[in-house]
């Protein structure tokens, strides 16, 4: 059984407030907060890359695990906002970590990529040893493309998260995961080449409101567990209203869904791991606590993963 060994995160230092964006977008700062639950987000510097942020998160994760990059048998790197068609950032991340030769695989899955990486890493750990799952996004580049959309720009921020999954001893055991994809609505959330982000928010929310609770219920049901038994839900930080809705659908307190969206916005596939890294640092899991990860994003791709802290 694979275990979660450590998490790490990196967010750029530059804070972008709603007031700053409201002036650029000719809208009201309070309106941004009301519709999204976001108060500020971080923007990477012009010379800061998806790979560079990924390396910073990966290094923090390895430090928390007390391991070196050479202890990693495989990298899975998720990003929907890398700067070129190919190669993706994975090989650059491996090179910058000093592990050329180690397989490094790109997962170009916006929003849900880190969850897919974690779920894929669990069965692969037996063959490859420690697997470093990294998600890094520079969404500020994406949403800054003209024409600026006031309903889209304020939602997103930049950052990276990382998780080390492997065999042996760890902080929590991965019990199960469910992954799903459905291309029926692929056009409703997409990023075409040299075009601004295109999002049918109504469709995304309508689908996510159903599919996320269903995936969580599915993975819990397979393990004979209930939502009430879960200590914390670490979900893709898409929108505070959406997280509250998922909590209601599962009939659990919204406070069980760890949230940092107010400070970082939606950092796409990085968001779940940034949230996990923060939560793990403080307060962290109780002995035997159930931890449920969940994400939904472009594709649509969605799923949930259940882990249990050691006793």
């Amino acid at each position, binding site marked *: 059984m694979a275990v979660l060994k450590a998490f790490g995160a990196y967010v750029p230092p530059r804070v972008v407030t709603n007031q700053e964006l409201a002036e650029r977008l000719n809208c009201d700062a309070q309106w941004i907060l009301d519709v999204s639950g976001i108060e500020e987000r971080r923007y990477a510097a012009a010379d800061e890359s998806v790979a560079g942020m990924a390396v910073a998160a990966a290094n923090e994760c390895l430090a928390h695990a007390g391991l070196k990059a050479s202890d990693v048998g495989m990298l899975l790197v998720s990003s929907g906002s890398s700067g070129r068609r190919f190669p993706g950032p994975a090989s650059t991340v491996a090179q910058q970590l000093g592990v050329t030769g180690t397989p490094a695989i790109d997962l170009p899955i916006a929003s849900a990529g880190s969850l897919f990486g974690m779920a894929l890493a669990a069965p692969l750990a037996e063959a490859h040893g420690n697997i470093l799952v990294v998600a890094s996004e520079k969404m500020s580049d994406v949403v800054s493309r003209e024409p600026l959309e006031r309903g889209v720009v304020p939602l997103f921020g930049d950052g990276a998260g990382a998780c080390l999954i492997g065999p042996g001893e760890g902080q929590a055991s991965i019990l199960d995961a469910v992954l799903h994809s*459905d291309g*029926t609505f692929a056009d409703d959330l997409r990023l075409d080449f040299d075009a601004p982000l295109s999002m*049918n*928010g*109504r*469709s995304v*929310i*309508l*689908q996510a*409101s*159903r*599919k996320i609770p269903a995936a969580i219920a599915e993975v819990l049901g397979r393990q004979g567990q209930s939502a009430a038994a879960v200590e914390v839900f670490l979900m893709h930080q898409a929108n505070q*209203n*959406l997280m509250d*809705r998922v909590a209601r659908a599962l009939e659990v307190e919204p406070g069980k869904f760890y949230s940092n969206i107010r400070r970082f916005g939606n950092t796409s596939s990085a968001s779940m791991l940034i949230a996990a890294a923060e939560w793990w640092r403080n307060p962290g899991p109780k002995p035997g606590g159930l931890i449920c990860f969940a994400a939904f994003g472009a594709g649509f791709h969605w799923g949930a993963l259940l882990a249990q802290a050691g006793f």
Partner: protein
Amino acid sequence: MDNRQRIVAILQNVSKKAALPGEDESLFDSGYLDSFALPDMVSELEREFGIQVPDADLHPRKFESIARIQSYIESRL
């Protein structure tokens, strides 16, 4: 109540607004419903009419106006 009246009652309950938009007017563009009220409305329609809306039918366009909602619901009864 006929089907239209049942739909209107759900819309008013979900939106908390009394004044309805026109029959073919967009519930969203008119500001009557926001994106987050849409899943609530669909759930209420399922409960009221005893139907299950499959995920493949969860296109916002199908629920864009009173007329479209009525057409869709009656196709499922």
